[in-house]
């Protein structure tokens, strides 16, 4: 599964990108390997849970606020 990125900027090294994604209660930034980002979508693996239009996904790395798993709008997901 992939999630839409609102923003993708270069990380501190060429192999890393910093992506910003929308969550159900705000946004999260996460530093990831650039290969996991394609066409403004971030690979996140299987959906871990669903609830009222939200999906629980695990980010490839810990976000800037310390989260691994976040609830995101299902509309932001793509296969």
């Amino acid at each position: 599964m992939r999630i839409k990125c609102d923003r993708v900027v270069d990380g501190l090294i060429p192999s890393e990108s910093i992506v910003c994604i929308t969550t159900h209660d705000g946004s999260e930034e996460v530093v990831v390997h650039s290969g996991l980002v394609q066409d403004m979508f971030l690979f996140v693996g299987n959906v871990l849970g669903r609830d009222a239009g939200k999906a629980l996904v695990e980010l490839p790395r810990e976000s800037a606020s310390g989260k691994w798993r976040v609830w995101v709008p299902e509309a932001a997901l793509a296969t």
Partner: protein
Amino acid sequence: MILTDREIQIALQTGVLKIEPRPKPDAVSSTSVDLTLGRDFAVWSSRPGMTICPGAKGFKYTDYIDLQEKRTGAHVLQPQSFVLGWTAERVQIPINSRLAARVEGKSSMARLGVGIHVTAPTIHSGFEGQVQLEIFNFGPNSIQLDEGMRICQLIFEQTLGTPEKGYAGLFIGQEADKLGA
């Protein structure tokens, strides 16, 4: 259980674990594999009067990225100073590999007073990328960090099962294809 040299080599040969460039045979020890330092560093600077609040709602790391000066090449780490570095090797632990790892320092560096991570040693199953090192010089002398030097070691552990994130398995193959792995 911690993987021994034999299991590490088998994992590398079979693609269960990927490290590029592939570590030379002498980089593997009984229960770990040494990684080397890359050429990139990032040094934090401070802004007078500023406090970073990572626990605040809406905290954005990118608001502070301009405080990190990128440097390349040899880096002299002054006493009581901190720098971010990365391994030269790209590590990939597929989420269905039933492996995870820890990055740890090396005694050769520790005896000089240099630590290579700040309490964040876990490399989760599914990790992909160069390993970030949070390098601190606790010693009284300046230490030169050179590209290619042995800087850390990875210790691999078997996990009990596959994380839910990758349990279906199909995703992993798709991702590996997309990554050109």
